[in-house]
């Protein structure tokens, strides 16, 4: 076992795991802020109950997102110290700014929101959740800006004296077109996740409260929440298509090897067809059979037109790369790149179909009560998260073997392969941390899932039926706290 593989497994596991919780946080925060805003604006207590209900689920999830995020920042230095030396001058700034300009806001104002329900004036308390909602998105911006430097380094040059990449322009770094497209894509994917979560949980509750027949909650609470979630999911899907398309077009140009692998396009071709199913006996170009193909799609994805598009194949790019960067294998894992790309798109179909179904079933004040509908809701719930995971696996695995991919039009010396970025550890040490993290993450995932499920099944709680009256001044010394851990 070599240290590069173990370190890559650790990074992959901790990152994909972290990004289970992140899109829920980023997507739910603004939607909870919207719910609370509707309550404050209309005084309709149904929206208060929804805010409290989804607020609890949000907090259960947020805890694990924060806990696993700490690891992300530290493991660059721990496992990827040579990478840190090479890019620290560029890469550290967005991480530090994320702390200063986003994460501080997020954590501090979330604390105010949790504990401030009857302590802060209503509008100030509402402002707290909005600050959290903006800050989590700002967090995403800084992190994506850093990640995009690994995909498409801009705003930096190689300094031969210090033997590292050095920042030239922070504004160029932050306006990296790769980063802006990826940021749009990530945020809309998160909104899709949040919208689908709200729609699915509420739909499940529509059917359940219908069968309980004890109250009108299905009509007053869950139906509006379902509709809100569905529209957000559909709007997010449209935005996902546009942002994803922009990303794809940039990628064909900036990281042609990644897109060629994603399409299992082995040889340079004019107007190649888009592959829906390609199978191979081995994970390389020699044994591929393209089973189902569609014309016109791939040229459009790459260049925005249907004809006269020549795309380079994996073999040719490999030959060119060897000439430019010396001997080596510059091909990513074909199987993973190809299938993660398709999984990302495939999983997207579930929330879209579900949202259309749910909107149809709830049209004109209707209350659906089919068991199949609540089952469909539960089935749909995790699919946006799976799509996000697949998307990250695609974009990060497709970048291999680079840890900083070369920019075809940038400083030709700003690039680094993964094997040169790793810390000089004995593999056993990284194995220890890999095993530690995997075990504790597995345990925490089980608890997280169980807690979310328990709170979803419980539904909005009795004690959240009415907003508490603001505490009278001077009652602080004796009155019970409105909320305590």
């Amino acid at each position, binding site marked *: 076992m070599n240290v590069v593989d173990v370190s890559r497994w650790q990074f992959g596991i901790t990152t994909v795991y972290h990004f289970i919780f992140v899109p829920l946080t980023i997507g739910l925060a603004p939607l909870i802020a919207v719910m609370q805003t509707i309550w404050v604006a209309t005084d309709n207590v149904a929206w208060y109950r929804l805010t409290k209900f989804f607020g609890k689920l949000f907090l259960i999830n947020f805890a694990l997102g924060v806990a696993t995020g700490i690891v992300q920042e530290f493991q660059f230095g721990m496992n990827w110290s040579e990478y840190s030396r090479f890019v620290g001058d560029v890469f550290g700034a967005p991480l530090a700014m994320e702390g200063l300009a986003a994460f501080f806001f997020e954590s*501090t104002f979330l604390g105010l929101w949790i504990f401030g329900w009857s302590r802060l004036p209503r509008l100030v308390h509402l402002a707290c959740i909005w600050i959290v909602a903006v800050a989590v998105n700002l967090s995403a911006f800084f992190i994506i800006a850093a990640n995009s430097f690994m995909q498409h380094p801009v705003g930096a040059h190689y300094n031969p004296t210090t033997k590292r990449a050095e920042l030239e322009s922070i504004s160029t770094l932050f306006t990296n077109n790769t980063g802006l497209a990826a940021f749009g894509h990530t945020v809309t994917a998160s909104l899709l996740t949040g919208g689908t979560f709200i729609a699915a949980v509420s739909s499940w509750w529509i059917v359940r409260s219908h069968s309980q027949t004890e109250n009108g909650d299905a009509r007053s609470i869950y139906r509006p929440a379902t509709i809100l979630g569905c529209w957000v999911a559909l709007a997010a899907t449209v935005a996902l298509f546009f942002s994803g398309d922009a990303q794809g077009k940039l990628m064909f140009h900036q990281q042609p090897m990644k897109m060629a692998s994603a399409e299992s396009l082995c040889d340079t071709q004019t107007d190649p067809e888009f592959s829906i199913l390609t199978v191979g006996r081995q994970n390389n170009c020699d044994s591929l059979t393209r089973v189902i193909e569609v014309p016109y799609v791939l040229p459009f994805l790459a260049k925005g037109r249907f004809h006269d598009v020549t795309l380079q194949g994996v073999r040719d790019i490999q030959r060119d790369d060897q000439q430019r960067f010396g001997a080596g294998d510059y091909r990513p894992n074909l199987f993973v790149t190809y299938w993660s790309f398709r999984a990302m798109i495939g999983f997207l179909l579930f929330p879209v179909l579900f949202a259309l179904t749910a909107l149809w079933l709830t049209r004109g004040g209707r209350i659906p009560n089919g068991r199949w509908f609540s089952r469909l809701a539960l089935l749909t719930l995790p699919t946006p998260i799976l799509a996000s995971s697949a998307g990250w696996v695609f974009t990060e695995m497709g970048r291999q073997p680079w840890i900083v991919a070369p920019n075809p039009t940038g400083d030709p010396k700003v690039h680094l392969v993964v094997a040169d970025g790793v810390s000089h550890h004995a593999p056993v040490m990284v194995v220890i941390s890999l095993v530690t993290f995997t075990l504790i993450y597995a345990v925490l995932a089980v608890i997280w899932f169980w807690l979310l499920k328990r709170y979803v099944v*419980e539904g909005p709680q009795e004690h959240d039926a009415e907003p508490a009256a603001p505490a009278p001044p001077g009652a602080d010394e004796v009155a019970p706290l409105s909320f305590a851990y």
Partner: protein
Amino acid sequence: MALHDVWFGLLAVLFLGFLILEGFDFGVGMLMEPIARMGSGDREPRRRAVLNTIGPVWDGNEVWLLTAGGAMFAAFPGMYATVFSSLYLPLLAILFGMIVRAVSIEWRGKVDDPKWRGWADFGIAAGSWLPAVLWGVAFAILVRGLPVDAEHQVNLSVTDVLSAYTLLGGLATCGLFLLYGAIFVALKTSGSVHDDAFRVAVRLSLPVTVLVAGFGIWTQLAHGKAWTWLVLGVAVVAQLATVALVFTRRHEGWAFLCSAVVITAVVVLLFGAMYPNLVPSTLDPRWSVTVSNASSSAYTLKIMTWAAAIFAPLVVAYQSWTYWVFRQRISADQIPPSIGLARRTP
């Protein structure tokens, strides 16, 4: 003075912010169970009274560490790479502690079940004791130095990590945070929890003074500079003032302030002893990781200086406001019944 010297100071300030704020969070986490067990009657409201003194603020406090880590990456990538890769296992333990503590605090009240709370309390305790000791060990290691070679790589042996000096450092920070946390609980609570927190502080004050003085004097004699004698003097005076105030069993605000001054002085002493090194080399002083050979370019430092100048005061302002919003004392009687769900669906 070059920008990298400024950033050495800013890094110290960020770590200081972390230790000043998380210091009492760690203390609260370590003392939650001992204080709960001191009084008669139901322990659960007492535990929760102690925990909720940091309830709204602990997460924001922890961001000081994340920002310090990010700033180290941005301003001194050479230090970030060398320190984080060489102190691999201690950092792993710290991360482990932080993860467990974060989820334990947030999830503790989610289920109304004694066994569940027992696990959460274990997580909070472990996640507080581990970093409280290990941060002291880590700083002592950095002051003492590591076998850094000419390429800034470190081939670590056990004695670099575990020595009398580093262990004393761990005990000193742990003791400091215990005392500081006890005073913080006294400051933030009323009723029997308040009185018990003072009892803990009184009992801790003398042993902690011995540990801190021992660590401070050792640091000064082995690694200090002429001007850090002054800092050590401030630490000693502030510590004695803390002890005197604790023994009055009143004036917890002043005692808290003095205790914070002790922590500040210790941090200044440690960073002062290091400067201009970031990681002194025990093999050859020429190979040390220093503020000049490990820093980022002047441009990056300039950008980061702007970012810090704009955002750091803002952070201090709104975090101070948070402490103002939640300024009232908590007593065990004010703790509401658990709103957590039963373990099983009824």
